[in-house]
């Protein structure tokens, strides 16, 4: 089932065309990876999917983005609800300078949930989903900034789960982590796909090959090739994809 679909999507920063004619299907409960060299537009595309580009000046977007079959740019959409459903994990773990508990309940509070018991229940559920509950249940009032990078990134994911996100957009979520931490986060991502639809940007081709079900290869604002990850990595159709994954450039 298709969760997110883009149709002839173009994106301009001023007069610079950063994305050109992107047609993409993100399947529900699957992990879709975007790979490609720096500056090819992966982040830009990711930010189109929950309309985070609205905040950047001079951005113009053409074409369509459909979430569950519903166009999100032309129709009148509830942006608050859209962004709640399509959560984002950033490159650098960025917990708020608050306690662990306050980080998790930040989103629910923003949405007007104030009941202490409910909030505790939400926290427990969200932290359990990212396998932090057992470690942290007695430290909920400690500062989130004292956690390790890996724990911080898990916490950032938990923050999204606490508002019942459906899609997790992850922009190079492991790029500041060491290999062991990266492996653990990858494990978590694969676990989360049972319940969530995940789109992950990665600079690391092995990572994309390891975790994703579908892969899109981007070059200079175009999606050169998109398909099942095994296909892309074993039998790419396009010469440019082959060059990139065999390390001839990138």
């Amino acid at each position: 089932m298709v969760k997110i679909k883009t149709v002839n999507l173009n994106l301009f920063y001023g007069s610079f065309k950063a994305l050109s004619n992107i047609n993409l299907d993100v399947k529900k409960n699957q992990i879709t990876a975007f790979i490609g060299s720096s500056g090819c537009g992966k982040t830009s595309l990711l930010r189109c999917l929950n309309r985070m580009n609205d905040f950047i000046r001079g951005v113009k977007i053409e074409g369509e983005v459909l979430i569950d079959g519903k166009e999100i740019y032309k129709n009148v959409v509830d942006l608050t609800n859209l962004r709640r459903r399509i959560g984002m994990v950033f490159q650098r773990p960025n917990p708020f300078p608050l306690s662990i508990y306050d980080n998790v309940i930040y989103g629910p509070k923003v949405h007007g949930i104030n009941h202490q018991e409910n909030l505790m229940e939400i926290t427990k559920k969200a932290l359990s989903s990212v396998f932090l509950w057992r470690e942290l249940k007695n430290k909920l009032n400690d500062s989130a900034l004292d956690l390790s990078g890996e724990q911080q990134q898990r916490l950032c994911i938990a923050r999204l789960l606490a508002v019942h996100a459906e899609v997790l957009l992850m922009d190079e979520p492991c790029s500041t982590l060491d290999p062991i931490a990266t492996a653990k986060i990858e494990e978590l991502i694969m676990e989360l796909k049972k319940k969530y639809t995940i789109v992950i940007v990665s600079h690391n081709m092995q990572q994309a090959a390891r975790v994703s079900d579908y892969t899109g290869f981007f070059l200079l604002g175009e999606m050169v090739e998109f398909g099942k990850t095994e296909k892309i990595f074993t039998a790419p159709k396009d010469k440019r994809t082959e060059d990139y994954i065999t390390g001839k450039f990138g």
Partner: protein
Amino acid sequence: MNPKLSQIIAKICLGLAMLFTISILIFIIIYILFHGLPILTYQFLSSPIQEMGKKGGIFPSIVSTLYLVITSVVVATPLGVGTAVYITEYTKKNKITDIIQFGSDCLAGIPSIIYGLFGFTFFVIFLGMGWSILSGSLTLAIMMLPTIIRTSEQAIRSVPQSYRDVTYSLGGSKWQGIKNIVIPKALPGILTGVILSMGRALSETAALIFTAGMSIRTPTSIFSSGRSMAVHFYTLAREGLSLPMAYGTASVLIISILFINFISYILMNQYLKKYS
């Protein structure tokens, strides 16, 4: 010259500059306290001003100063922080924000007597507030604004964009992000500005003589006239009424400023521990 030698010389020069600055500061403080502390009795702090300040104490000036500083901070802080938030979060950087910025920086450089004149014509005469704590405080508030805006703006801009993005990506609004994360995170910087400008209000004379007046009575409300400690000190010293009393007043001023800075330093450290 060999690098090692020049390194040593540079270090010595910088050290001397530091030593020089600190000594002057300490000298001034010690000089004033040396002359003023003998006067500082409970009597001095709690008695009315008598014979234009030759006798008695400075109780009315202490009250006036408190009134002036508190009222001006209460007026200037929301205005200044509000302006800073608006400039940083709600407008794009363009000609108009540059002009606001430029205007506000110019305001910071205007001599206080000019503010006094403005306060006099506008608040005292035009709005009919008379010589009063209110006129004085509003004038002080205008003087404080540039500092508060500047420091708040810097503090707000230094909050990482990603915190705002997270709020959006959780479905929060811009205002929720500002209220819940941006302002708390920028608070130490904002407070620094407020405290700096409190120092300015405490030590202001020229603008206040024109607006708050020189009454030696204890103000009973913000509509009374009153002379702040700085104004009282200025009068005592300039008119040669009583140097010991002048030093006594100056000591109270200096001690208050040191005290405010000390308290804010402690608060800020605690806050930073909690929030970063």
